[in-house]
């Protein structure tokens, strides 16, 4: 498919963006324990999901010459040792329980903060990062040998079966104060990687029909002329794909539909573009080259009274999972979301990325994507409203998806990970590289 009107982003710009995104992990790290801050904002705790992205990004940095192999191994080792030795008692101030970890940790002590939940998906992202490191650092040096042993320890001790809380699907989380959260991972979302890791575990795997139980809540929809496995926010169609190469492999659902998850994410990207073209709420900037509703920050503090003639009263949100076609949509766009779709739809993604940066250069600070901009709301300087600082998840997905687009490095590493292969097969995936 070709898109007229906008030149695509150049390879050189892409390289700059990828490197700048990676540098987040060098700035936001506590080198003593490898923990990475969730955001660059004051007093930000560490996010275990962001640590998973960091562990996956170090091999990319080594390949691209942004980091020495020794530094990358040292950083990875510090991280993995911290998690191995962390308090696994499940107490309210511990770091984890049953091999899972609390979502947000103190940057220095590694203790749980914000009364956060023991997060199943963020633990999966962390473990996926660890497994990536384990595949990349394959040399027989003492450091890399230790690194691989640490990865094994962390993965094998995760009690995935426990995380089902006695029901068919994995729960979203657990708190020491109140037990499992009321929410399960129902309906298509970013958790395929979670299910694959949980199914592939030789020690605590979940039952084989758990994946089927989860996919029973899938909805295959024809929307704006595209047929796809529906989920609103774009990141849902991206996160598991950062690690797993879904090209040409199919589970039962995708066999039935004659599709695969990679192609599905391409269609989801097109649907986002169609939505922006329609722009039902009349937000400024939206068009075929300016799109991407996803989990990002927003101007929630700018309260309600921005009513244009004939328009509905605007409501703004803070950090939330914005989605298509039913919102929430407050005109906030994560500019990085287009690049995170790069492997699926390179042509339209590169043109959108280029176009958005041309129009809203404030999307970048220090060459790095901010979480979001909102062109409908003007800043004091006259540009779009800009989310302050940087968010680690955004940087991580940008580094990985640009790399998968360029060299498929992460996909290649994870295709060789026996746990991922086993997990995919137990989930019913067949064909292609499997």
């Amino acid at each position, binding site marked *: 498919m070709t898109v007229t009107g906008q030149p695509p982003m150049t390879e050189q710009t892409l390289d700059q963006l990828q490197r700048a995104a990676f540098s987040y992990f060098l700035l936001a790290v506590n080198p003593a324990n490898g923990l990475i801050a969730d955001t660059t904002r004051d007093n930000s705790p560490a996010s275990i999901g962001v640590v998973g992205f960091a562990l996956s990004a170090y091999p990319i940095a080594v390949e691209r010459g942004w980091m020495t192999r020794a530094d990358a191994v040292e950083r990875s080792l510090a991280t993995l040792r911290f998690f191995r030795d962390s308090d696994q008692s499940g107490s309210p101030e511990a770091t984890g329980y049953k091999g899972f970890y609390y979502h947000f940790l103190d940057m220095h002590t590694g203790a749980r903060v914000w009364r956060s939940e023991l997060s199943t998906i963020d633990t999966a992202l962390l473990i996926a990062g660890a497994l990536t490191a384990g595949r990349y650092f394959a040399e027989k040096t003492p450091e890399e040998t230790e690194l691989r042993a640490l990865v094994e320890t962390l993965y094998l001790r995760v009690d995935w079966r426990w995380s089902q809380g006695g029901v068919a699907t994995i729960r979203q989380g657990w708190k020491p104060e109140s037990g499992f959260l009321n929410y399960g991972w129902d309906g298509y979302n970013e958790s395929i990687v979670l299910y694959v890791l949980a199914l592939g575990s030789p020690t605590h795997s979940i039952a084989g029909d758990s994946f089927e139980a989860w996919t029973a809540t899938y909805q*295959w929809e024809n929307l704006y002329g595209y047929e796809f496995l529906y989920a609103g926010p774009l990141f849902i169609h991206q996160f598991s794909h950062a690690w797993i190469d879904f090209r040409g492999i199919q589970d039962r659902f995708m066999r039935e539909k004659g599709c695969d998850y990679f192609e599905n994410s391409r269609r989801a990207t097109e649907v986002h573009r169609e939505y922006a073209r329609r722009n039902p709420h009349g937000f400024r900037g939206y068009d075929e080259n300016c799109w991407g509703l996803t989990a990002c920050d927003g101007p929630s503090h700018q309260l309600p009274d921005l009513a244009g003639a004939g328009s509905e009263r605007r409501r703004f949100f803070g950090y939330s999972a914005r989605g298509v076609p039913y919102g929430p949509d407050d005109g906030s766009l994560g500019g990085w979301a287009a690049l995170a779709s790069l492997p699926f739809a390179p042509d339209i993604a590169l043109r959108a990325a280029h176009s958005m940066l041309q129009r809203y250069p404030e999307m970048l600070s220090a060459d790095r994507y901010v979480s979001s901009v909102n062109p409908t709301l003007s800043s004091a300087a006259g540009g779009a409203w800009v989310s302050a600082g940087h968010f680690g998840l955004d940087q991580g997905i940008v580094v990985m998806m640009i790399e998968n687009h360029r060299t498929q490095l992460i996909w290649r590493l994870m295709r060789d990970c026996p746990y991922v292969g086993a997990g995919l097969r137990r989930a019913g995936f067949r064909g292609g590289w499997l």
Partner: protein
Amino acid sequence: MQQHDDTSSTTPQDAYERERLDNVHPADWRNPQPAGRYSLVVVGAGTAGLVAAHAAAALGAKVALIERNLLGGDCLNVGCVPSKALIRTSRVYAEMRRAEQYGAQTPDDVHVDFPAAMKHMRGIRARISRADSVRRLVAAGVDVFFGQARFTGTDTLTVDGTRLRFKKALIATGARPDTPSIPGLVEAGYLTNENVFDLTALPRRLLVVGGGPLGCELAQAFCRFGAQTIIAQRWPLFLPQEERDAAQLLSDAFARDGIEVRLNTDVVRVRVEAGQTLVDLVSDDYQSTVAVDAILVGTGRLPNVEGLDLGAAGVDCDAATGVRVNDFLQTSNPLIYAAGDACLEHKFTHTADASARIVVRNALFLGRQRLSALTIPWCTYTDPEIAHVGLYVRQARERGIPVKTFTIPMHDVDRAIADGEETGFVKIHIKERTDRILGATIVASHAGEMINEITLAMVAGIGLGTLASVIHAYPTQADAIKKAADAYNRTRLTPTIRWLLRRWLKG
């Protein structure tokens, strides 16, 4: 704080109320002398009972109808009718406040006259009560008895001591609010659908417990009347049976209206301290307390099966699920049937009506009509409305039916854009590789009206492809259904067919 069953909160006895009561339970009513043996005795004169009595009498059966309270049951008196009247008034206020959105002037001071809204509701209720009046029943030849029915044998019952014999009987005693056992709730007092329509003043601060249809509808209406409204729902979404997107859109609409939405939240205790009603809420490990002036409970309904001596008639029942019936609506006593809320999972007026018609056929005319053969739509009358018919996707998938959904967002429908009513969608589920409609969910301002077309198609066996050839008046919001049908037809253009078409057109 309003008290449940508190006589101090009764409806003003105005002309409307006098008319309604004169229709549905005249003060000077005297029960007739029973006939020898009735073809059909109907216990309960709500929707199911009234429909069965009128239908059976019209066909020449000798019918007795027994009601312990008011003809018309919940629907007329404390359910669909009064709630829809209030919802309409509340929509007017909501539209006044956002008049600018339609290019109209928003009034400077939108003052809510709650007593006027209630009076308007009473007027509508009185008018609609004429259809359910005792005089209409008598004119139709039905013997109407007011009083408590008790079965005394397999083919007899008494009404306040008077013995009635029957060939067949119908239990249509309805249901009542199921109140959760929240410590302190009873002491503090609370509202349900049974007394909320008696309010004479708007509670300043209202807590709605339960995110089912009733709780959702009234929370929105009372918020739009100006009550500071909190809705607490145990589950992570409203209307937990419905499509996730529908529930999400409803949450968003509530937030837009200014309702404080507390999902995933349990109400654990109600306290009265220094004249203030305080309610303790818990969401996972987060505890909070809110001060309120009234609590409305909408957490489900329990069938009315007590006090009937069903055991004497050999009728099995369960306190939670009601009278046990087979697919023909026959109870464990083959002479006795049940219909409506007393026995059905789907407690709607229209299912009560449909089940009563089945009973008349099966009980009096040797019919073999099955409850499971019905296609039952339903609608929650929030703004936007949420309507559904047939299977949900997850139900189809659980049954191993491959399912595909055609989705049209309302923002793609011209009339919805013109009306400023773009929130919502039409989702029509079909069986893959066919155009057989399995079900549909519609979220739209008038979803309840739109769902009827899908129900008709399903009952008549009309496929989605055929709906594309049905001309829809333009512009209407129901055009969304045709758009879904058109989208279906486009998927039939396989590459081979496209190639053939190109060849033909070139030729």
